[in-house]
Every structure is written in C-alpha cells, then in structure tokens.
C-alpha cells in the first residue's frame, strides 16, 4: 500500500505533483483515470505516537486504518474540478494493522482426535473382555463416552482443553453363566467389528481433512 507520487494528469495536465489515495473512497467519481495512490510516509509525530505501530488484536480480518488529516483543499483546481486532490498532511499518521492470531481453530480435528482416542480405548476394553472370556467370576467391562462426546459436540469454548478420560465400568444386565462369567463371545465379536469400522471411518475422515489442508498449503 505504499506507492509513489503520481503526476497529476487531468484533462489539462497541470504538472502538479500530488498524492492521491489508492483505493476508492465513497466519493471517488473522479473522471481521471489515474490510479489514486497514497504515500505512507512516517513523518511525524507531534503526538509522540509511533506512526507505524502495529497492534495485535484478536479478530479475523486484516484491517488497515489510515488516518490523515486532509490539508488544504487547494488541490488542483485547474483540471480537477470535481474532486479536489486531497493532500494528506502526514503528521499524525498511524497505521494500525489488526492481525488475527495465527492459530488454527480447533474445528473438527480436535473432535476427530477425541473420537479416535475413544475408539482405541474401547478396543482395549473389548480385548480385555475377550481375553477373560473363560475366567471364572469375571464381569464384562464397558466404556461410556456419551457425556464426554456430548460436551465436545456442543462446541463449548474450551473444546481444546484437557481431554477427559472415558470411564470404564462393569456392565449391568448380562446373563451370568455357571462359572460366574458374563462375557458373551459373540456379542464381543460384534462390538469389535463395529468399533473397527467406526475407527476406520474416523481415520478416513481425518485423512481427507488433512489432505485438504495439505493441498491448500501446497497449492496442488
């Protein structure tokens, strides 16, 4: 956004060197086809402020503020009847650039990571049940993520905070055999298959997200 000065050329070039503003203002119905350009010269400053101060503020956009006090409107009256050239007295010129914080928002990667972790925990619990299918007095273990998952899905502000550990507890309501064991091997195999498919789903979704990010970064 800098630019150099441009020689003012109107219908009748007068040769005055003025500085123009580059981007369009609301009043830019200037007939001239000169691109408006503005020069940022850090002259100054009586107020004692650093003219090129850049303040970081959390936001999502890059804003640029250019303050200048227009000087006399003694612009080019000869050829520029409509829009007198504005000369900025580059006295108190401050540039405030608001840069958004360069962090990647958690979005869905956090949720997918949690889901993958939960799947792995559930697989370990199922493995424990399968390994103890012939152990007398063993009660089937189960994992519950529902409350944790609901919280993550609700998208609360601290979704990137410390992940909570899923709770492992003994499952109720399954038939107990004569040796005190209530593990049903067929049910465990079904749970194993289901969990493996869910894990595969989460991994593939995560892979596609990462692929999108990668192609956005590399541009291919």
């Amino acid at each position, binding site marked *: 956004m800098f630019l150099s000065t441009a020689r003012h050329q109107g219908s009748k070039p007068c040769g005055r060197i003025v500085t123009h503003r580059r981007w369009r203002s609301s009043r830019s119905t200037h007939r001239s086809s000169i691109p408006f350009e503005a020069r940022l010269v850090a002259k100054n400053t009586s107020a004692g402020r650093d003219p090129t101060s850049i303040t970081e503020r959390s936001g999502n956009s890059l804003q640029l503020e250019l303050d200048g006090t227009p000087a006399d409107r003694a612009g080019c009256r000869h050829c520029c009847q409509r829009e007198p050239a504005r000369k900025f007295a580059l006295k108190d010129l401050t540039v405030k650039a608001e840069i958004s914080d360069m962090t990647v928002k958690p979005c869905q990667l956090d949720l997918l990571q949690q889901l993958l972790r939960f799947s792995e925990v559930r697989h370990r619990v199922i493995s*424990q049940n399968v390994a*103890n*299918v012939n152990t007398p007095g063993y009660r089937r273990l189960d994992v519950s993520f529902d409350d944790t998952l609901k919280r993550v899905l609700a998208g609360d502000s601290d979704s990137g905070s410390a992940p909570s550990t899923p*709770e*492992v507890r003994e499952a109720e309501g399954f038939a107990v055999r004569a040796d005190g064991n209530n593990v049903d091997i067929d049910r465990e195999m079904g749970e194993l298959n289901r969990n493996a498919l869910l894990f595969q789903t989460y991994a*593939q979704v995560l892979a596609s997200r990462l692929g999108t990010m990668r192609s956005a970064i590399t541009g291919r």
Partner: protein
Amino acid sequence: MQVGRNLSASEISASGLAAERQRMEVAANNIANANSTRTPQGGPYQRQQIVFSAAYDAALGTGTRGASRLGGVKVVGIQEDPSEMPQVYQPGHPDADANGMVTMPNVKLPSEMVDLVTASRAYEANLRALRTCRDMTEQTLSLLRGTG
C-alpha cells in the same frame, strides 16, 4: 495407540492367546493321561485344571477404574482337581489293591473335549482382536503417508 508403561491392546490380546494356549495344553495332557494309574508321585493321575484371573495393572493404584489399568488375563496356576477318583474292579491289574479295585484318574473325556473346543474358540476370538488392533494401527500410520 498407547505405547509406554500401559499395556496396549495387542498385549492384552497376547495375554489372552497365551492363557488359552495353556488351557489347551492342560486339556491335552488330561486326555493323554486319562488312563494313567501310576505317576512318579505314586497313585493314579489326578486331573489338572488351570486357573485364570483377570489382571489389572496394580502399579497404577486402586483409583478410578480407567482403561489404562487393564492387564488382560493371567494364569494363576495349575491345580489338581480334588473330585472323587472312580474305582474299577480289576483284580488282575498290576496296580490293584487288596480288594482288586483299581483307582482310575478322574478325567472325563467329554468335559475335556468341551474344554478344548472352548479354548480354541477363545483363542480364535483373541486372534481376531489382535488382528483388528493391527489393522487399526496400520490405518493410523497411513495418515502419515498422506495417501488417505
């Protein structure tokens, strides 16, 4: 996948495989010695049975039951079956006592066969869990490869 001091899912499944294999060996030993009336300790062969125990990682304390405490299955030991030994009347037998009764091992073949089948099914189930764990790990690694 958890690597480190916690037992991973593949170790849990491996402990199940080892336990079921030992159970099969014990059942095979019982079947082979179903008619052994003499042992190095004297007396007939007594049926052996294996004792399993669910294992939890005691090193992590007895706090909340987390998934990190799962330890698979552990073989506590192999014990003699104290049930009654059948007595058969065979006067000509070298091991017959004064009354002509021979004490036979208390091995019942049908129950040993059922134990064998149960152990082999459990072994297959543990193998399936181990294979699934390996597939899940491979999928996680494929994320790094970037072809997903």
